[in-house]
C-alpha cells in the first residue's frame, strides 16, 4: 500500500533516466467532500538550493521503487513559484494536526495514504496509527506480529488545520457537527487555531459552540478574541450562559464585553447577576417566549415563527398578564392541535395547578421538584407571582452531570 512518507526525498528521474532531483513535496487542492488529486510535485534539484514545481501529469511512475517523468526534463513545463490555492502535503499536512470530522477530535497526521481513485492519483486517507509512526522511523519490522493496526481517517472526512481554519475553507461537514462536538474540537486545538475555527462559523453557530466550551477555556478564548468578535459571539449567546461567562471574567474584561451588549440584554444580565449561582435564580434563563391571555393561537404561532431564530430549546409559551404575573403555560403541542382562533387563556394550563420555583430555591430542591413532577422546564416567579425566568432540565443536568 503506497504511503507518502517513504517517497519523500526519493530520486526523481526523467524519461532518459537522468536524475532531476529529489521529491520534496506534493501540492493538492482541498475540496470539501472529495479526495484530493496530486496536482504538482516539488523537486529539490541536485546541488541546488532551488526548488522546481512540475505538474503531476508529467509524472509517469510515482511509487517507492521509482518516481519518473514521462518525457525529457527539458521538455517539461516548470513552475518556479507555487500556484495559489494549493496546500503542501509535507509542509502543511504531514505531522500537523487535522480535525477528524467523523470522530469529532483532533489528531496528528503520521502518514498519508495515496492511491488511485477514478483514474487519478489521490490522497485517500490519513494514517494516525502507531504503525504510521513506525513506518516513519523505518522500523515497521519491529511489528512483525502485526500487533499495530493501521488506523486511517478518510481524507474527505478530515479538515486540515494549518492555515486552513479560515472562513470558507472550513468543510461543511465540520460546521454541520453538533455544537458540543465542535466545542470538543476547539478545546483540542491550540488557542490560536481554536479561536480561528470559532470565527469561521456563522454567528449563531459560533455562539452555540462557545456555550459548550469548557468555562476555563471560554475565559481564555474570549480574552484572545478582538472586542468586536467577542461581542459578535456574546450577542447570540443565551442570557444565562452569558452571565456565567461574565462572572468568570476579571472585572475590566467583563466591563469591556458588556459595552457591546444591547441595553435591554444588559438589564436582564444585571438581574441575573444578582442571584446566587446555585439557586433557581442563578440557573434560570430569561430568554423565553411569552404571550398575553387574550392572544389567539394563530397570533402566537406567528410570533413563534418570527422569533424562533433567537430562542433555542424552548417548548412552551408562558402566559403573563399585563403586570407580568404568571398566569399559565401552553405547550407547542397544544398550540398545534388547538383551534387557531381560540385564545391562550382557554387552552393554557393554569399556573395555580403548576409547580413553580422561587429564585432563591437551591439547585437540589429544583432538581428534586423537576424529577418528581417530570418537568422539562419550570417557571421561576417571585413572591408576587411575577414571572422571572425559566429553568430547563438541561440547565439542571449540566450541573448534575458536569463531565458530559
Amino acid at each position, binding site marked *: 500500500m503506497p504511503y507518502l512518507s517513504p517517497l519523500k526525498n526519493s530520486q526523481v528521474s526523467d524519461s532518459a533516466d537522468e536524475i532531476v532531483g529529489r521529491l520534496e513535496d506534493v501540492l493538492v487542492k482541498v475540496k470539501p467532500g472529495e479526495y484530493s488529486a496530486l496536482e504538482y510535485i516539488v523537486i529539490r534539484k541536485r546541488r541546488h538550493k532551488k526548488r522546481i514545481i512540475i505538474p503531476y501529469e508529467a509524472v509517469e511512475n510515482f511509487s517507492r521503487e521509482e518516481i519518473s517523468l514521462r518525457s525529457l526534463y527539458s521538455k517539461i513545463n516548470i513552475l518556479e513559484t507555487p500556484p495559489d490555492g494549493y496546500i503542501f502535503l509535507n509542509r502543511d499536512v504531514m505531522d500537523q494536526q487535522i480535525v477528524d470530522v467523523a470522530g469529532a477530535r483532533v489528531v496528528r497526521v503520521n502518514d498519508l495514504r495515496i492511491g488511485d481513485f477514478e483514474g487519478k492519483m489521490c490522497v485517500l486517507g490519513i494514517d494516525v496509527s502507531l504503525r504510521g509512526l513506525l513506518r516513519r522511523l523505518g522500523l515497521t519490522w519491529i511489528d512483525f506480529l502485526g500487533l499495530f493496526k493501521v488506523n486511517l481517517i478518510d481524507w474527505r472526512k478530515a479538515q486540515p488545520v494549518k492555515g486552513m481554519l479560515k472562513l470558507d475553507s472550513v468543510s461543511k461537514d465540520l460546521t454541520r457537527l453538533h455544537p458540543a462536538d465542535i466545542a470538543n474540537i476547539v478545546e483540542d486545538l491550540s488557542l490560536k487555531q481554536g479561536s480561528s475555527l470559532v470565527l469561521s462559523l456563522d454567528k449563531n453557530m459560533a455562539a452555540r459552540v462557545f456555550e459548550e466550551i469548557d*468555562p476555563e477555556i471560554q475565559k481564555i478564548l474570549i480574552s484572545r478574541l478582538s472586542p468586536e468578535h467577542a461581542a459578535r459571539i456574546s450577542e447570540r449567546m443565551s442570557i444565562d450562559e452569558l452571565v456565567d461567562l461574565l462572572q468568570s471574567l476579571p472585572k475590566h474584561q467583563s466591563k469591556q464585553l458588556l459595552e457591546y451588549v444591547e441595553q435591554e440584554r444588559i438589564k436582564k444580565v444585571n438581574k441575573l447577576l444578582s442571584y446566587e449561582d446555585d439557586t433557581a435564580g442563578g440557573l434560570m434563563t430569561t430568554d423565553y417566549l411569552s404571550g398575553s391571555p387574550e392572544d389567539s393561537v394563530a397570533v402566537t404561532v406567528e410570533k413563534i415563527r418570527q422569533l424562533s431564530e433567537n430562542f433555542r430549546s424552548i417548548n412552551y409559551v408562558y402566559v403573563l398578564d399585563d403586570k407580568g404575573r404568571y398566569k399559565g403555560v401552553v405547550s407547542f403541542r397544544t398550540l398545534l392541535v388547538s383551534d387557531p382562533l381560540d385564545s391562550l387563556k382557554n387552552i393554557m394550563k393554569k399556573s395555580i395547578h403548576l409547580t413553580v420555583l422561587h429564585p432563591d430555591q437551591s439547585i437540589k430542591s429544583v432538581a428534586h421538584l423537576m424529577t418528581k413532577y417530570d418537568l422539562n422546564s419550570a417557571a421561576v416567579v417571585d413572591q408576587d407571582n411575577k414571572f422571572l425566568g425559566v429553568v430547563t432540565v438541561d440547565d439542571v443536568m449540566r450541573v448534575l452531570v458536569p463531565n458530559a
Partner: protein
Amino acid sequence: MLRFMDKKNTKEIKKKKLWPKLLLIMSVIGPGIIAGTADNDAGGIATYAVAGSQFGYHLIWILFLTTFVLAITQEMGARLGIVSGKGLAALIRENFPFRATFFIILLSFIANWANILAEFSGVSAVANIYGIPNWLFVLSSAGLISWLVISGNFKNIQRIFLTSSALYFAYVFAGFMSHPDWSAALKSIVVPSWIPTKDFLFMAIALIGTTVTIWGQFFIQSYFAEKGVRTQDLNWSRADVYLGSFWTNFVAFFIIVATAGTLYVHGVTITDAADAAKALEPFAGVLAKHLFAWGLYNASMLGAGVVTISTAYTITEAFGWEGKVNAGFKESSSFYKLFLFCIFSTALVVLIPNFPLVPVLVTSQALNTFVLPILFFFLLKLLNRKDIMGDNKNGLSLNVFGWISILILSGLNLAYLGYLVFNIIK
C-alpha cells in the same frame, strides 16, 4: 440517587483536560515561579548539598551563571509558547524531520524518567531518616501524587503548592542556622574559582544540569501556550520567568551555604541529601535536620508531580495522542496512562533492594546536560523563524547568548567525556 453539588464546585470538576485544570491553580502564581520552584527537586537538593559539603563555597559562582542561562532559555521558551500558541514538542514535530523529533523526545523521556526516579529516591531517603518502612512511604507517596493529579481537586492542590513553596524557606533558615562565613559566601557568587579535578568538573555540570532542565524547557512553553497569554503581555511573562530563575538559585545558594558552613568546614563528606539532613544535626541542631528532611520530602513530591506531568504532556503532544484525552473516561487516555506509568515504575524501581541508584542518577544528570544543547539548538532555530515568531523573533544579542549557552554546555559535556575517556585509557 444523584449527588448534588453546588455550581462553583462543579465548574471546577467539569474540566475534561488536565492542563486547563492546572492552569487554574497556577493562575495565582506565575509559571516561571512554578518551574523555578519545582526545579529545586530531590536531585537538585542532593546536588547542592553534596556540592557544598565537598567544595564549600567554590562552586557558588556557577549558580550565578546558571541563573542567566536559565533566565534566557526559559524566556525564549515562554515567548515561543506565547507567540506560536503551541508546545515545544508539537513545534519540533511540525518543523523538523520526524526521526529528529523521535530522537529528542526519546532522550528527553529517558532523562525525565530518571529525574522522576530521583524524586522517589528523595522520598525514600526521607523514609530512611525517620525510620519509616521504605515501601510503605514510597508507595503511599506515589499514590498520593496520582490521586491529587487524577482526581483534580484543585483547592487542595493549590493549598499544597502554596505551602510547599513556602517550605523552601526551610533551606534559607537551615542556611542561617549553619552560621556560615557570609563574606566568603557572598564573595564567591561573583568570583569564579576552579579546582582542576574530575569531581569538581562533574559537580559543575551536575549543578547546571539540575537547574537548567529538559522538562523545565517543555513545561514553561506548554504552560504559557495553554494559558493564552497574549503577545502584548510578553513583558509580564518575562518578569515572571526572570523571577523564577532567581528564586530557584536563591534557594540553591542557601542549601550550598548550609552544607558548606557545616559539613565542608568539618570535613564531613556526604553522598546524598539524606546524609546531609543527618549530618547537619550535630552542627546546626535538630531543627535544621527536620527542616532539611521535610524540605526534601516536599521538593521530591512537588518535583515528581510537575516533572511527570510535563513528561506525559510532552509525549502526548509529540505523538498526537492529546486529542484522545477526551475519549471515554480519564483513566483510559494516553496522558493518564503515561502519568501513572512514570510514577509507579520509578517508585517500584526505587524499592528494588541494592538498586544502583547513585550511578543511575548520575547518568541521568549527565544525559540531561547532554540533551540540553540539542534541545536549545531546536529552540534557537524555531525562535529565528519569521513565519512562527513574526516580530518577536530572537534579536541578535539573544541569539548570541543562546549560542554561548549551547557552547558552554557542550564544552562542559565534552570536557567530562574527555575525562572519562582519559581515565579509561589510563
